[in-house]
């Protein structure tokens, strides 16, 4: 991070007075290597096919950027399943990456350590500069850029994509875990994020989703080249959805079986503000359950993979993050 001072104010949209600080331009080191991952979940097909095309066309270097394509979970891709033993995209915490490998170690834990050696090590100077992981969701989320910590680079990439992509809404989602607890494959990179595009059923490849993912990847590479060649990207603001709170399905107390479906008025309404009193579940016997508490933004509404943990959706707050201008640090 540059010596130049940068100030920012993170604010919520609750109508508090806003004070804008003038931000100096921040200079950052060039980003020379970019890893793009797909098939982290073997049945999320867009990333699998994007990689296949990139590998077919031998995409290895675009201008100043070296590109590494990685099929994260080949076994799960072959079986067209989310995972074989356990979810690969939860295997990248510091603890799991340093756990000893034995004969009985699940496939995905081994694979996570392999990927860490190849693209990381996580948190080190050798790690790839930027890592992007491609995902799909059955939820109606459009294109989401999901990242752990809000670093300027990623926020600028968000801003750039938001200005260029018109085929579907583009939104930023921030997880904000301490790095040691960050569990997804994108935490391996010095900077990392995931593209999440939905709705798309798992095991299905939709052309419109493929085309948007391709555009997002191409624009990211374009941004990197422009950044490396000295362009200053003007500061501004990016809205991000943060502070995730999980909402579980109503369940039968004895059998733990799910007893309700997402209510039709919530279904497909990711990112639409959920007010107290709004319907959220419709039980199998016809009763409506309503939202209580703060007005929040639901995401990952009715994502197939979350049934396993009985998760119905997450609730988030909207924050406005202010970015300084950035450019590449010249030697």
């Amino acid at each position, binding site marked *: 991070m540059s010596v130049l001072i940068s100030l920012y104010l993170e604010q919520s949209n609750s109508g508090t007075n806003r004070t804008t600080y003038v931000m100096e331009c921040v200079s950052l080191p060039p980003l020379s290597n970019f890893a793009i991952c797909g098939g982290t979940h073997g049945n999320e097909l867009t990333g699998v*096919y994007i990689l296949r095309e990139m590998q077919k066309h031998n995409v290895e270097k675009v201008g100043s950027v070296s590109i590494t394509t990685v099929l994260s979970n080949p076994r799960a891709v072959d079986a067209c399943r989310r995972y074989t033993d356990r979810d690969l995209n939860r295997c990248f915490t510091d603890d799991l990456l340093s756990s000893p490998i034995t004969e009985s170690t699940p496939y995905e834990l081994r694979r996570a350590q392999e990927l860490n050696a190849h693209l990381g090590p996580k948190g080190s100077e050798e790690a790839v500069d930027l890592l992007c992981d491609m995902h799909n969701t059955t939820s109606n989320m459009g294109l989401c850029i999901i990242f752990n910590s809000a670093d300027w680079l990623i926020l600028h990439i968000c801003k750039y994509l938001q200005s260029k992509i018109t085929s579907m809404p583009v939104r930023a989602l921030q997880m904000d875990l301490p790095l040691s607890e960050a569990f997804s494959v994108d935490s391996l990179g010095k900077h990392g994020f995931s593209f999440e595009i939905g709705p798309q059923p*798992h*095991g299905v490849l939709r052309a419109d989703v493929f085309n948007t993912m391709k555009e997002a990847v191409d624009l990211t590479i374009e941004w990197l080249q422009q950044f490396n060649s000295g362009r200053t990207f003007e500061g501004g603001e990016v809205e991000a959805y943060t502070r995730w709170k999980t909402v579980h399905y109503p369940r039968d107390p004895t059998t733990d079986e799910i007893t309700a*479906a*997402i209510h039709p008025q919530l*279904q497909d309404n990711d990112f639409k503000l959920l007010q107290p009193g709004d319907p959220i579940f419709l039980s199998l016997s016809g009763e409506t359950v309503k939202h209580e508490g703060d007005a929040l933004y639901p995401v990952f509404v*009715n994502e197939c993979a979350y049934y396993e943990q009985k998760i119905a959706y997450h609730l988030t707050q909207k924050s406005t993050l202010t970015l300084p201008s950035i450019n590449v640090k010249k030697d």
Partner: protein
Amino acid sequence: MSSYSSSARFDEARRVAIFGGTHGNEMSGVTLVNLWVKNGSEIQRKMVDTKPFITNPRAVEKCTRYVDTDLNRAFTPENLSALGEGDLPYEVQRAQEINRIFGPKGSPEAYDVIFDLHNTTSNMGCTLILESSKDYFNLQMMNYIKKAIDPASCLVLLNEHPLLKYSTSRSVAKHPVGLEVGPQPQGVLRSNIFEAMRVILKHALDFIELFNEGVEFPTCTVEVFRVLERIDYPRDANGNIIAMVHPNLQDGDWEPLNPGDPMFLTFDGKTLHYQGSGTIYPTFINEAAYYEKQQAFVTTRRETLVASAIRKA
């Protein structure tokens, strides 16, 4: 106007089954059948014994389409008579057991009606699947259902094609009825899809009750979509898909596809056009489970079938 003597006579439909979980990740049927196993009052009708039944419990437990082989293709004569017990693939064993309970297929002891509940990732809406154009009982039922839910729509897919027809779990019954509702991702339960399926079954059971009470259903016509052929994705020499369903065709189930219309889009943006000789009606467009069955969509043509008047024997 029909007279009693020209009505086709069918036995009372006394034994009816509702199958869910033939594919373990098609959640509407799994959920409905589980609900009705616990409390079957909604599906009870006078003089009908309606049995809700999970056909593939292992697949349901794993929330997967099947464990060894597709149960909904497993009811072939070879499979049903195969020896080997525990060495047979799970679904073949299951098929034999289902045939024992609800069949034997083709015999007088077989169940009268089986409804088999399915979901699809395709944008097919509510679809009833018919296996024989001569099954007037089923045609009359489907006509009744369509009228009952009007203005909501429920289309009828007829799969009588000698090569493309397959040995379904419901084929054990005298009158097999497939119910396919989409779009719904595998493993997901959408409330609107679940309710739509529930309503269709309600009307189907109402029809059976009326029929058993002696109501005569006058001759009727039913529009159906007859399966013509299966169209696969374009593939390379290694069998890999090289194009996707074109955005213009995606979600366009039941809309006419004319010669020259866009059909597939390659990964580098080239459009491939439908080359057939006439207009067809595509369906099962981009069904997840059919990638491995070499099917991007099926073509159908519209036909009007006539069902004679029917009455219980």
